[in-house]
């Protein structure tokens, strides 16, 4: 069951766009972080059920943050939401342990589909 969602993206607008794609009646608790390092710390503190992670970020990028999160919690459910849609980038994050990759800009359809898949996986 998904209760807690963490959104990691350096762009406040991007976080707002993503959040608006998630049903408001889902009863989710949201946390946000503006870079990979803050995202990693927030992950450890809040133990989210699902994390949406951007890749191109200052301080610590999303690839490194994903690596660190998976190292900390190998069952972490991380959905990468990125503008970097190069095949090599997608292959790399999937290899590290991302659950899914969603390309930007987010839409209600692709974000809700990703959440449904995450829900199914979590059982």
């Amino acid at each position, binding site marked *: 069951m998904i209760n807690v969602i963490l959104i990691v993206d*350096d*762009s*406040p*607008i*991007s976080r*707002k*766009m993503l959040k*608006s*794609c998630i049903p408001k009646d889902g009863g989710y608790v949201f946390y946000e972080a503006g870079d990979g390092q803050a995202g990693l710390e927030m992950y450890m503190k809040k133990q989210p059920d699902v994390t949406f992670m951007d890749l*191109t*970020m*200052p301080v610590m990028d999303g690839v490194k943050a994903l690596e660190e999160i998976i190292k900390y919690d190998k069952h972490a459910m991380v959905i990468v939401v*990125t*503008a*970097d*849609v*190069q*095949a*090599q*980038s997608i292959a790399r994050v999937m290899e590290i342990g991302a659950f899914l990759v969603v*390309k*930007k*800009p987010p*839409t*209600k359809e692709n974000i809700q589909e990703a959440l449904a898949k995450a829900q199914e996986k979590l059982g």
Partner: protein
Amino acid sequence: MDQIAQITDEERDILQEIMNIAFGKAAADLAEVVNIFVVLSVPDIRIVDAADLPDYIRTEFSGFGNISIVEQNFWGEFRGNALLIFPSDSGKELISLLGDGHPVSFESQASDFLENETLMEVGNILIGACVGKVAELLKDMVTYSPPRVIIEDHPSVSMPDTLFDPENSAIILKTVFCFNERNVNGFLFLITSHNSVAWLKKALADFMEQYE
């Protein structure tokens, strides 16, 4: 000037995100043509007086010596100049990327020709995909001039005079990228004049409507 001043921080953030998405698409398009991985950075959006553009560009490239510029104009509701800028010696690195990956050696004239052709090809792909994606997201349609290459030891000299019209302001969308395997850095600037601002503000508001 008044309209430029009215671009809000939020509109700037939206534009930055759109540029981020657009350049991501451009990088993926290039990666499909050549076997290369493009390292992306967070785009930077600035609004400057057009008269200050030469100084801005000079400062940005002060450490580079000679530079190669691929310039392409675009017209739609969103209109302006796209400038793809590399340190001059990047051309030869790019030739080997588009070829079989081996270093190339040509007579000087042939090398210059091939270098220009390569820069234009890379510019065409990156600028076309990036401007095209911005236009698509903002529901616009743009046409392009053919790309042209300027090899210059003083960046501001060869820029079109219209860019520096003292009556104008310019929105600069800058992204820095790196071709990982080749250690080639490049800069992409989209410079649009204040004439696009009224349309841009409306287009950004329309784009965000789906996220209300």
